[in-house]
């Protein structure tokens, strides 16, 4: 293991963590909405949220590239307004990871929220708690384990993301190159031993993420 490889690992883990953080509030909001019984347009939102799971990742990458390009509808606005460049920077990495990990999280979190017995929520309401208080003191704590497991799953997915990242963030060593992208370019460059070393590293990391996710999902706590 060279210093460069540790840096790569650290960078990838940081990007995946940031992507998960960016995704979390949006994902939680979506999961909560989807766990509500019935409302207009639910099926559409449901489908849209799951789309990145089934679309080829490069298609998601293409959409992000066009939207967040310096001349794209959103990218233009970010560039002019905040001076933020997205495409081919670390921001693009975070963005791609957040979008790609969203569906996995929403699925897990939604299932956990649906499991919460509505009786408890109803009880809190009759005792005079507002919707926010019900959410923060009853619903979320009861769904905690599923939400945590979903978060770990999303983090794991973010660590392995390749297609969308490659398209929207490119492969700039030390700036946007993540572990999977580095493995790909090692193969392209014929550096097989480095590719194997990095592959082992990412397998270890993925193992840890899944293991943590399973543990969090299972362990019953009082």
């Amino acid at each position, binding site marked *: 293991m060279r210093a460069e490889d540790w840096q790569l690992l650290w960078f990838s883990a940081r990007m995946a963590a940031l992507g998960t953080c960016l995704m979390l509030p949006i994902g939680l909001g979506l999961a909560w909405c989807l766990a509500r019984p019935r409302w207009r347009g639910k099926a559409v939102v449901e489908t849209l949220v799951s789309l990145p799971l089934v679309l080829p990742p490069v298609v998601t990458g293409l959409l992000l*590239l066009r939207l967040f390009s310096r001349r794209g509808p959103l990218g233009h606005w970010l560039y002019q307004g905040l001076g933020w460049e997205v495409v081919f920077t670390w921001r693009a990495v975070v963005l791609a990871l957040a979008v790609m990990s969203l569906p996995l999280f929403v699925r897990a979190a939604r299932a956990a929220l649906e499991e919460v017995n509505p009786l408890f929520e109803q009880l809190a309401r009759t005792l005079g708690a507002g919707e926010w208080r019900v959410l923060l003191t009853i619903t979320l704590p009861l769904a905690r384990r599923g939400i945590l497991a979903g978060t770990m799953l999303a983090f794991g997915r973010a660590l392995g993301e390749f297609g969308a990242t490659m398209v929207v963030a490119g492969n*700039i060593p030390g700036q946007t190159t993540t572990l999977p992208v580095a493995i790909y370019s090692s193969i392209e*460059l014929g550096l097989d031993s480095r590719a194997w070393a990095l592959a082992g590293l990412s397998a270890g990391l993925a193992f840890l993420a899944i293991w943590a996710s399973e543990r969090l999902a299972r362990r019953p706590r009082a």
Partner: protein
Amino acid sequence: MATLLLALAAAVAAWGGEQAAKRHARVIVFAAASLTDCLKEIAGRYEQSTGDQIILNLAASSTLAMQVRAGARADIFFSADEARMQALEDEGLLAKGTRRSRLSNTLVIVVAAEGGAEVSSPGDLAGPRIKRLALADPRAVPAGVYAREYLERVKLWPAIRPKVVPMENVRAALAAVGGGDVDAGIVYKTDAAISRRVRIAWEAPRQEGPRISYPTALLADAPQPQAGRRFLDHLGSEPAAAVFRKFGFVVLDGSVP
């Protein structure tokens, strides 16, 4: 019943078609991405006049060389530099005596056609106006390797290197400049000529620019060696040379390096 008969008839027709196609060879050509447009034109005409089918696999020469090394089925390799070809020759993967240097090209600096950065020399790439520069991956892809070697020779590489956005192949670098997400790029003159979204800001002068050479060779394990040789001969013919020139390539005399 009628549907069944129809399906049967279709199957027989398809079989017949397949038999007919077998009389003509399918030549698989692995060619550098920068050759995309001219080879499509040459192959299209060749297919019409001979009936042979030309299958083009267009990618960075370094990627293609890796695929050949890994045992990909191909008849012809058309590389954008001699180094990739030499590596295959050293490994005994080329059919002996079939390697020829065919084309030359020129490097140019391109910027977006609309609102592109002000660049008039390679020195400007080191300046503050250029924050990101798209190159074909300078570690292996020929267009990027030529650019890096040139910038190293004029002592600009250390200043430019941190700005480099390495792309899969030269056409990807061209597209990045056209899309406006990098400030400039270095590509071949022939690539710049096919894109309306970029303009040429600087062209490497013939004498001091890198010596660019595109060699062709038949591969040792070619599934269709005869048809492959015929297509190689065609690539050296005057009609093919006319197409190469139309796209801006310099046609070499087909010497053996």
